[in-house]
């Protein structure tokens, strides 16, 4: 009933009928062209998937995949990763107090210090991530709650943001810049890392904040309004800061290259994560010289400075929805961070292919000849 649709054959019949005198016999007595295409005799390669032809493929896949897998697995294992949960669920945790809403002193930001020890030194560049879990950055209402043209520096969108930003579109009758739920919920814990020298003194580990966002995002997709006008205060005149923010967008950083919409922390946050448990790049720790590892083994403290959350009256509040906050230190290889999955999968698939190759070989030997010999006399 459905598929008999998109044609008009009945009409075609009518057409020739309406023409009336149009001869039926005339004109059609043309011999069809004898081309290879029309006669369906185009030259063609006709491969057949038989055990014989597929066998080598399986072995080749096996032989290629297993070494790749081993390589990936080894690479992944060589990556050093350190992870620390600082949500402060456990009352014994140093961050417990800060994460309790009631004990919060709203005048002074709460700081908690978590000591930790690196058992191994991190030799190459170290990447510092913060991780959140149970945080649905991929919720539809959340994902679309942004205005890309506003973020791209469009003047009209700055003053009248897209409807998608509701309910974070205006506050106090002024348009919010940057509008939307994503921007509003910008992660605002400040993480700092101290190395505790063997003599007990703390030395700040230098964290670099440039290069954490995609180059194209930073340079093309995100732009401050007003072009080259570095006086962001003036540019953002007439807009309101997102309700959860303490500072307006033009005070995110003192560096004009990293302020406003092109603040890299902001850009990183704006790239919504695919899954509810995610990590985002926070800082880079570059290797200074070849002699000293980037992070020596030893004791460190992680200082978390909580920023006042005006509406919520708490820290960055993940505990209500059973969320977790983590800090991750990781080195990176050519294949990214620590992920044994790819290596294991390659090894498994390679071995399975190899095994299937053997099975097929047996089948081929046992039944293949019988089939062929039985058929040929026919």
């Amino acid at each position: 009933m459905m598929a008999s649709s998109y044609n008009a054959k009945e009409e075609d019949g009518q057409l020739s009928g309406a023409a009336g005198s149009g001869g039926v016999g005339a004109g059609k007595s043309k011999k069809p062209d004898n081309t290879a295409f029309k006669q369906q005799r185009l030259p063609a390669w006709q491969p057949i998937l038989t055990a014989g032809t597929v066998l080598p493929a399986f072995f080749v896949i096996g032989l290629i995949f297993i070494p790749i897998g081993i390589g990936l697995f080894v690479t992944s294992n060589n990556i050093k990763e350190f992870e620390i949960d600082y949500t402060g669920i456990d009352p014994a945790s140093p961050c417990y107090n800060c994460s309790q809403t009631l004990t919060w002193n709203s005048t002074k930001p709460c700081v908690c210090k978590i000591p930790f020890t690196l058992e191994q030194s991190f030799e190459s560049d170290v990447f510092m991530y913060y991780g959140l879990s149970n945080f649905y950055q991929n919720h539809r209402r959340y994902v679309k709650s942004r205005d890309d043209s506003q973020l791209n520096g469009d003047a009209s969108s700055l003053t009248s943001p897209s409807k998608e930003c509701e309910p974070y579109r205006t506050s106090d009758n002024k348009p919010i810049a940057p509008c939307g739920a994503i921007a509003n919920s910008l992660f605002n814990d400040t993480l700092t890392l101290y190395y505790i020298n063997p003599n007990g003194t703390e030395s700040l580990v230098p964290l670099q904040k440039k290069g954490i966002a995609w180059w194209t995002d930073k340079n093309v997709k995100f732009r401050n309004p007003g072009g080259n006008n570095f006086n962001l205060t003036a540019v953002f005149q007439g807009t309101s800061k997102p309700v959860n923010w303490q500072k307006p967008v033009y005070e995110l950083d003192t560096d004009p290259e990293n302020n406003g919409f092109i603040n890299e922390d902001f850009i990183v946050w704006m790239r919504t994560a695919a899954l509810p448990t995610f990590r985002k790049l926070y800082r880079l720790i570059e290797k200074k010289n070849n002699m000293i590892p980037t992070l020596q083994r030893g004791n460190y403290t992680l200082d978390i400075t909580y920023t006042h959350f005006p509406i919520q009256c708490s820290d960055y509040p993940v505990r209500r929805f059973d969320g977790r906050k983590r800090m991750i230190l990781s080195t990176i290889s050519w294949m990214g961070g620590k992920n044994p999955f790819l290596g294991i999968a390659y090894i498994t698939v390679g071995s399975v292919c190899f095994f299937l190759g053997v099975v097929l070989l047996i089948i081929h030997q046992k039944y293949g000849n019988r089939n062929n010999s039985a058929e040929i006399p026919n």
Partner: protein
Amino acid sequence: MDCSLLRSLINRYCAGEENWVDSRTIYIGHREPPSGTDAYIPQRYPDNRIVSSKYTFWNFVPKNLFEQFRRIANFYFLIIFLVQLIIDTPTSPITSGLPLFFVITVTAVKQGYEDWLRHKADNAVNQCPVHIIQHGKVVRKQSRKLRVGDIVLVKEDETFPCDLIFLSSSREDGTCFVTTASLDGESSHKTYYAVQDTKAFRTEQEVDTINATIECEQPQSDLYKYVGRINIYQDRDEPTARPLGSENLLLRGATLKNTEHIFAVVIYTGMETKMALNYQSKSQKRSAVEKSMNTYLIVYLCILISKAMINTVMKYVWQSDPNRDEPFYNHKTDSERQRNTLLKVITDFLAFMVLFNYIIPVSMYVTVEMQKFLGSYFITWDDDMFDSELGEGALVNTSDLNEELGQIEYVFTDKTGTLTENNMEFIECCVDGHVYVPDAICNGQILTGTVGMDMIDSSPGAGGKEREELFFRALCLCHTVQVKEEESVDGIKKGLQPCGKSSSVYISSSPDEVALVEGMKRLGFTYLRLKDNHMEILNRDDDIERFELMEVLSFDSVRRRMSVIVKSSTGEYYLFCKGADSSIFPRVIKGKVDQVRARVEHNAVEGLRTLCVAYKTLAQDEYESVCKQINTAKLALHDRDKKLAEAFDVIERDLILLGATAVEDRLQDKAADTIESLHKAGMKVWVLTGDKMETAAATCYACKLFHRNTQILELTTKRTEEQSLHDVLFDLSKTVLRHCGSLTRDTVSGLSHDVPDYGLIIDGATLSSVMKPTEEGSSGNYKEIFLEICRNCSAVLCCRMAPLQKAQIVKMIKTSKEHPITLAIGDGANDVSMILEAHVGIGIMGKEGRQAARNSDYAIPKFKHLKKMLLVHGHYYYIRISELVQYFFYKNVCFIFPQFLYQFFCGFSQQPLYDTAYLTLYNISFTSLPILLYSLIEQHVNMDILKRDPSLYRDIAKNSLLRWRVFIYWTLLGVFDAVVFFFGAYFLFDNTTFTSNGQMFGNWTFGTLVFTVLVFTVTLKLALDTQYWTWINHFVIWGSLLFYIIFSLLWGGIIWPFLNYQRMYYVFMQMLSSGPAWLGIILLITISLIPDMLKKVICRQLWPTSAERIQAKRQCLSVEPSTIFMLSQTSSSISF
């Protein structure tokens, strides 16, 4: 179409209900009849405008849209689109609106263009000038202004502008010749007769003085039926009434030939002409594939709905925790919060539906349609099915049934003209037991004397001589053959072209008659012409004998005979009757019946067509009473046919048998080979014929329907006379079922000696008693037993069938409990009913006109072409479309199932996994062309092999590639692949980085990764299935992958100013810059393809189908020729 019919109906009723009468009265030339005649009921007639167009400029848009959205598929997509517009849905309305818009626009443009052409054609027809007579003068008028009652003048080679009653002709005998090629395709010239009393009015002035009224029935669509009456008023006398029949009716669309001009009066105009009434489209046939496709669609609709329901329920379970529903970072707007819960649930459900709606893609319909439409060109292009004699190849009237050609289980074929050439040749005649054989086909000269006659029996005596000549005269007179003096007849050109002494050609709608008249010519009696109602015969002494033709009791298939009444020059009245033996013998009272019967039966066994000839003399008063009978019957307006038949029945009685004739109908080229192939392909072939049992059986042996060792079961009147039908049926079924056990499925060869091969012969009378419900209501029983017998017979011959019975048989088999797919093939008008009834109707462009070809789904020039049609084209179309259907469902499961899984990770928020562009273009461009191309040119086995080995056809019997098992396999494969894509990407992304610069990817990269794997996997899966790689396949498959990459690069490479989001900006390129993404893509594609590859290989190795065996064999062989070639090379070099 329906509309036009409706319109004319409305017109009629608008004219006033009370005016609606069964007949109409027409005043010729609008001249009022003398007063005192019947009360005149004024009727309003439509003007002569033909409206074949469906739309006008103003109503095109609304009407076309309405028409299009009446189709369920379109309507479904419209609803989805509207839902997207109304509620806040995950995907933008563009994603479904664009394809829908595209489809609708293309269809609308196509239909609009067609309608424009139709308007143009209509205008051309409506405005073409016609000549009408007004006040004794010829006036030009536009065709559309013709009114009922006008008198028109039609000149040679003009087309009749409406339905006309023929008043007079420029020919003296008041006849004219007409071809109806554009109506029914018959290009032979037909003779029409002017009304007797008006044929003398030859000039405009004279014609204008005709004072007559015509009473006739209201228009009806049967081209060959017309009843009316003309009342001619002369000098205030009582009017003379004359019957009008279809021989007086000139139909719109027919063309006047060989006649200078004619005058005729308009009776039906515009949309009421028979041509217009015949526009009704045939009922649509649907193929088995389409039916399974629709079933699958319902399954998928259920899947879609259940997916949406699961997700809706899960959503509400999940967000029952307010911290999940509205965490601090993701508040709802106030209006969202305040919305009614029920409304929210419905909205969510609809949103999920929209998100998953791609599982039933618009593009599938478009692709299937395109495949069918374009694919059918291969049939018309096929050189092997081109007949150079006819100058025509195969014709496709419906492309909807292409794949059904690969599913045929029963073939019902006509005999005459289908299995046989319908190229009749007079073989012999038998007069009172003396057999005359004309000298072998003209070797240079015609023998006019008795010398040429080869008497088998002893020479007849003096009385015999007289009888003999009477017999010859009878055959010379009893026919409706016309003599065409000059050449230029493009119809049936039968005659004496190479060796005739005159250039005359006999033309008739029945080839038998031509053969007979020609045979008589060879025996010395030449029919010269019909002149002034006198038939002229050149007898053996070169004298011209003239007989006045008084009446023709024309042939019909119920009576199976025809008669003429002639008056000899000596004033005697003769009635000559010729017809099938069964219809003549019962009416014979005198003559050597037994000898003739013996000869007839002998000839029938030889496979010759026999006719018997009888006569009787009529006295003057007898003739007059006969005349009266016929005329009263002819004048009747209602039930004229029945009354005529009754009259004929009375007249054709008490005949004296003269003799019988035998005409040979040669088998068509390769008919036997074709039937044998069909048998080997597992089809059951039934021959349905109106012929005698013996003749038909002989033909069946000749064309190898029955073999020497076929055990023939007879179910004929002869047997049922001896036993009751009940007993015969049970006997037969016992015989058949005894061997049922041994009849294993594996009778592939069908010729093995140990398994008896049954053939059944049944005749029309017995068949109708089998089908007829008996008093006890046990007809179902008989039918069942009969079907059971038929099922076990490889061949069935049904003889003595009426046209309608043919259709009944087809219907009976069609509706039997296995619902087999049937095919009917025939060439004549009597096969039309069965062609329309069968699943697939095939017409042969034969000699008996083109009605069968016109009503068929496919038309082929010769029976032998059926072999390629079914075994090659049917097979290909079937495997192509079944793969198309399965693949379409598969690729959309692969496409949508990851979205479904993603909902579990995004809080059931209807977040789409893929970008809008990908959602829209996946089915339209990324994956559409390879499968379309596959479905057009795939060939798993060479066509020569398919033709050589018909048993391959059994591979695909019973819709085997669309069984539930196969469907479930494909669906599960789709689900597996989808799971691999999704979780593969999930584990790659899971809380880790996979770039070498430590930067993170977002959800769009995740979707793009899944999508990339998806596009590659489904395309490569098709590549694995493709077994016929032409350069086009390479181009399209690799081209569409390349297109995907280029598109993605472009789509992500620019900040698109018209979009309000830039989420895809650089996503694809960033993904490609990451090594693990590449490795992941390769890995996931490999994992997805392995199971299918493995299944293919193992199935081929362990349970190969016969096609696969052939392929393997071919591969083995393909190695050999080169070796042989090399060997021959070496041997030849050695010998030198």
